[in-house]
């Protein structure tokens, strides 16, 4: 099985790179050089063992689960609300050329705005609870889904459309059997990007002002110069992202099973 072997080799190399990085970090922050001090001060750079120990402790004591749960809830809400809005408005604009043309500059301007500047306003409007973070995530997810749905409806193959009409579909049936699947295929192939942005919205919102969540923990640790806490928070965030992303990959493989492999692969690479 040459494929199995190359996969094993790849995995080994990937683990080696990780271990090498950790080892370098460990040596630079602990091995004494010239007069007993390490090259990098652990106060500013922590050490890998401290970070792992702290992460283990947080999971073992159960402190972190509540924060993970809150960040997950914000991410899911931001994704669902943003995607629903993007699908509805995307469809509406794609079927009404005049509306799309009139709104075009405003959509572009709104999308060009860096969303971080909205965070304080959302905190004012929605308070320091989860909804200000959800709102921030929604502004990010909405545009990705909106543009994909718009494109998906516009780019329905003319011959598929003509064929569907000749088979006797009325407008409602065309929407259900042709436009919606075409638009959804674009949405699904941008799933990695949009779910990622939902998480970014949640964490950035928490970071800028909140009482719970992974972003809050990182901000708290930074506030007291607890570098180990910051790195530990980043580690947990990274693990969280990998778990969410693998669920997205599973969902994508299921939802886009009618697509040829190559297309799915390219779309994933773009995301």
């Amino acid at each position: 099985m040459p494929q199995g072997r190359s996969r094993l080799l790849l995995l080994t190399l990937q683990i080696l790179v990780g271990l090498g990085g950790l080892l370098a970090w460990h040596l630079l922050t602990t091995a004494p050089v010239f007069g007993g001090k390490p090259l990098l001060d652990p106060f500013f750079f922590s050490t890998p063992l401290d970070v792992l120990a702290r992460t283990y402790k947080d999971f073992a004591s159960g402190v972190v689960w509540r924060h993970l749960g809150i960040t997950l809830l914000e991410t899911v809400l931001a994704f669902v609300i943003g995607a629903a809005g993007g699908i509805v408005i995307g469809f509406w604009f794609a079927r009404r050329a005049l509306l799309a043309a009139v709104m075009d500059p405003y959509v572009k301007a709104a999308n060009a705005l860096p969303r971080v500047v909205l965070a304080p306003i959302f905190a004012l409007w929605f308070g320091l609870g989860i909804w200000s973070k959800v709102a921030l995530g929604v502004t990010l997810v909405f545009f990705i889904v909106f543009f994909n749905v718009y494109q998906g409806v516009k780019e329905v193959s003319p011959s598929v459309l003509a064929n569907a009409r000749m088979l006797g579909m009325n407008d409602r049936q065309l929407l259900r059997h042709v436009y919606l699947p075409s638009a959804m295929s674009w949405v699904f192939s941008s799933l990695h990007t949009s779910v990622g942005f939902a998480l970014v919205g949640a964490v950035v919102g928490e970071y800028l002002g909140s009482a719970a969540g992974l972003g809050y923990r990182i901000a708290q640790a930074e506030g007291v110069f607890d570098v180990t806490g910051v790195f530990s928070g980043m580690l947990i965030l990274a693990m969280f992202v990998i778990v969410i992303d693998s669920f997205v990959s599973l969902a994508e493989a299921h939802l886009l099973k009618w697509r040829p492999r190559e297309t799915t692969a390219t779309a994933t690479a773009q995301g």
Partner: protein
Amino acid sequence: MTLASPAAPAAAAAPSSALALEKIKVAFPERSGQLFVAVEGVNLTVADGEFVAIVGPTGCGKSTLLNIAAGLMAPSAGLCRAAGAPVTGLNRQAGYLFQSDALMPWKTAIENVAIGLEVRGRPRSEARAEAASWLSRVGLGAFLDRYPHQLSGGQRKRVGLAQVLILHPRLLLMDEPFGPLDAQTRALMGELLLDLWSADRKAVLFVTHDLEEAIALADRVVIMSAGPRSTIIADHKVPLSRPRDITESRHLPGFIETHKAIWQQLKREVLRAYADAPG
């Protein structure tokens, strides 16, 4: 050939053809503001049960005529009748097999074939059962749950054929349906088509650039002139009996003579089309 049944006295009183194009003209506005006249003065009738092929040089507006017959496009002048009644909007009596891939890629073969019945309100299980039987008639009984990208080009055409025929259209429009296929697959598809067609002869209007295919399949071969303002310049009856063996009939004297006669006219148009082509 048609028996006057008491259920359809009107049809018996005025025998109408499946399709009648009367003085059809199609013009598009060009960017310069002038009108580009693609086809002009086209008269063509296809009787019920008749298989008519259109041949002509590329760009002569063959596909335009099919789109008009299907009601996907309205003529600038002239009239298109389906079974005597003027076509406004889509021609509900026509089935259309497109040149390019027109299956819904997100539906499996059986879903693609059943959809026409389902949107007409037939219960899903019934539609699926009928779709399965049509797919096995086109030789795809083992591929019901494949998505279009998992099928070969020839198999996709078979699904397309089943998708159209399951609705029993009175008129079948085909736009170079086997164009992208290789020669062997084309011959097989032609035989399959004649086989299915002979079961309940529908009217067929078949556009092709392949003269041999046209003669082997059709009752009548119609030649269009090179565009612009292309029109029908000749109408040949094919003196071959049915049922036909497509590969064998090529060697019959009737085939060879018809081929010679049509090619003389067609060649002139093809050369003209080349000479006029820009660049």
